[in-house]
């Protein structure tokens, strides 16, 4: 071992980085951005879920619990009629509603209360604050029912999903789309970059090919691959992992295909801004990680701090993930306005990226 030679290698390496400003920025800026985002997402003043309270108790204790719920900082409680509850869950204005039954006070006196908790259920993580708020309210109630303990046996009703759903069922729907999006993006950006670094793009530009033909040809080629991959992923998820699905397999496939086409075009577009495969791969933490955190895969968008919700609402992956859950968990079909919006936004994004890719191709070669 020669210290001199080892030092030469180390020095050469650091000298290379000194000139690659972008890599330096990634090394030192990206971790702060990603950790900061995660911190803000989890600890930031999170938006609390909207919860309806239907107090049907003929005695005095239901009002006490409803009052505690209204004062809770974990949820934003409002009075509703229990008959409206399901409709409000479906239109998304509530994530849950709690019914305190007519004999609630009597139940409390007899020692066991059974309020009904109706949960929307399509997104993991949304239910926890509701259950917590209710537990706190009931603990407060117990202290007011003098002389005896009160046990709680809430009756939980899910609009979507339910007890036989596990974590994979909720994440699976989102991940099927994400896996395809991510892998197709990486393959496209590197392939298109190769086209430029190996000089063949220059040759294509000196041929009668139009720019649009290059972009669309690429898109179709990768889309064929992506669709085969989508079929494989979907078959594995449904047949082997047995992820619950209430919707049409064709709709899931359609949504996956849209995501794959979006990923292809995003790859083509961003490859214009990378000079090497090394720089291309750097787009992953910049493009994929924030979308992964903010698209509602892990944390419901409605529970994010308000400022991040604005960001989430312009990310295509948010709509794609929502669309996949609409289909698989809620069983949405083409009559669902929410699904049409999701699909429409992803499609709009695809068109925007095709245009952007074609335009950038022209500019970079001039």
């Amino acid at each position, binding site marked *: 071992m020669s210290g001199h030679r080892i030092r030469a290698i180390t020095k050469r390496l650091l000298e290379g980085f000194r000139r690659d400003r972008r890599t330096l920025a990634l090394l030192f800026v990206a971790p702060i951005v990603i950790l900061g985002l995660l911190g803000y997402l989890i600890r930031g003043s999170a938006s609390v879920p909207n919860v309806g309270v239907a107090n049907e108790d003929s005695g005095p204790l239901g009002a006490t619990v409803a009052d505690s719920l209204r004062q809770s900082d974990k949820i934003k409680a409002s009075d509703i009629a229990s008959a409206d509850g399901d409709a409000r869950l479906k239109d998304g204005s509530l994530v849950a509603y709690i019914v305190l039954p007519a004999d609630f006070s009597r139940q409390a006196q007899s020692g066991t209360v059974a309020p009904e908790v109706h949960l929307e259920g399509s997104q993991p993580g949304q239910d926890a604050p509701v259950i917590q708020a209710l537990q706190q309210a009931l603990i407060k109630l117990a202290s007011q029912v003098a002389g005896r303990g009160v046990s709680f046996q809430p009756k939980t009703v899910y609009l979507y999903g339910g007890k036989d759903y596990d974590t994979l069922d909720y994440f699976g729907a989102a991940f099927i789309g994400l896996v395809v999006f991510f892998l197709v993006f990486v393959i496209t950006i590197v392939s298109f970059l190769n086209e430029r670094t*190996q*000089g*063949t793009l*220059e*040759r*294509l*530009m*000196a*041929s*009668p*090919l*139009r720019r649009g033909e290059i972009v669309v040809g690429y898109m179709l080629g990768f889309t064929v691959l992506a669709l085969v991959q989508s079929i494989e992923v979907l078959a594995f998820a449904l047949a082997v992992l047995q992820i619950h699905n209430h919707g049409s397999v064709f709709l899931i496939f359609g949504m996956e295909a849209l995501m794959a086409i979006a990923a292809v075009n995003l790859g083509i577009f961003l490859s214009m801004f990378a000079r090497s495969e090394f720089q291309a791969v750097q787009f992953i933490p910049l493009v994929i990680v924030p979308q992964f955190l903010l698209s509602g895969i892990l944390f419901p968008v409605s529970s994010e701090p308000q400022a991040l919700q604005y960001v989430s609402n312009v990310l295509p992956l948010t709509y794609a993930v929502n669309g996949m859950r609409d289909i698989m968990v809620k069983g949405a079909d083409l009559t669902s306005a929410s699904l049409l919006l999701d699909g429409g936004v992803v499609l709009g994004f695809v068109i925007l990226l095709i245009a952007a890719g074609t335009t950038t191709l022209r500019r970079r*070669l*001039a």
Partner: protein
Amino acid sequence: MSETFAVSIDDVSKSFGAFKALNGVTLHVRQGEIYGLLGPNGAGKTTLIRAICGLVEAHAGTVTVLGQRMPNVPVLRHIGYMTQQAALYPSISVEENVEFFAAINGAEAGVKEALELVQLYDRRKSVVSTLSGGMRQRTSLACALVHRPQLLLLDEPTVGIDPQLRVQFWEYFRRMAADGTTIIVSSHVMDEADRCQRLGLIQYGRLLAEGSPVEIRAKGGSQNLEEAFLALAGRRAES
């Protein structure tokens, strides 16, 4: 009346930032002629070739190819361009590469002939990444001429290939020119210059001199083309 030129370059300038790659270049290439662009590395030869096929848009001046002002996409059908590096798809075979460039030019019928011309028909099934540098250059040439272009642009086609292959390449070029193809070939190797019918000497983005090898020698006052070039370059620097 003026002669019809395959390529007319009139007072063309192109800058990249503060760097003037082309500075008022004017030259004309006749049909069926082998025209050599001669000059040191960084002289502006590649930029000029890229301007001819429309990849670079001139800031000033005009480039006219086969009667059409460039950039012009339909004219590209009649141009073959062999880039400096053997720009090929490494993971597919020789034949698949040539077929691809034939297809985008609408000339699928020419594949076999092109492969035979560069003597790679027997190796057509070989994957490009497994080939030697010389074979890649030959594949690259086959891709550039598979659609029988009227104008063939060759950017340093013989860099890094052995003398035997270089002789072969020039044999192809002569045959094609005899069939009416106009060939513009760039080089910084002086012994190749003698094989061209006319030469344009380029340095610092300017055309120093133009003429047949004999004329260039006379202008530079030396029997040696290299010395003639250096003399012309020196005279320009003084003026």
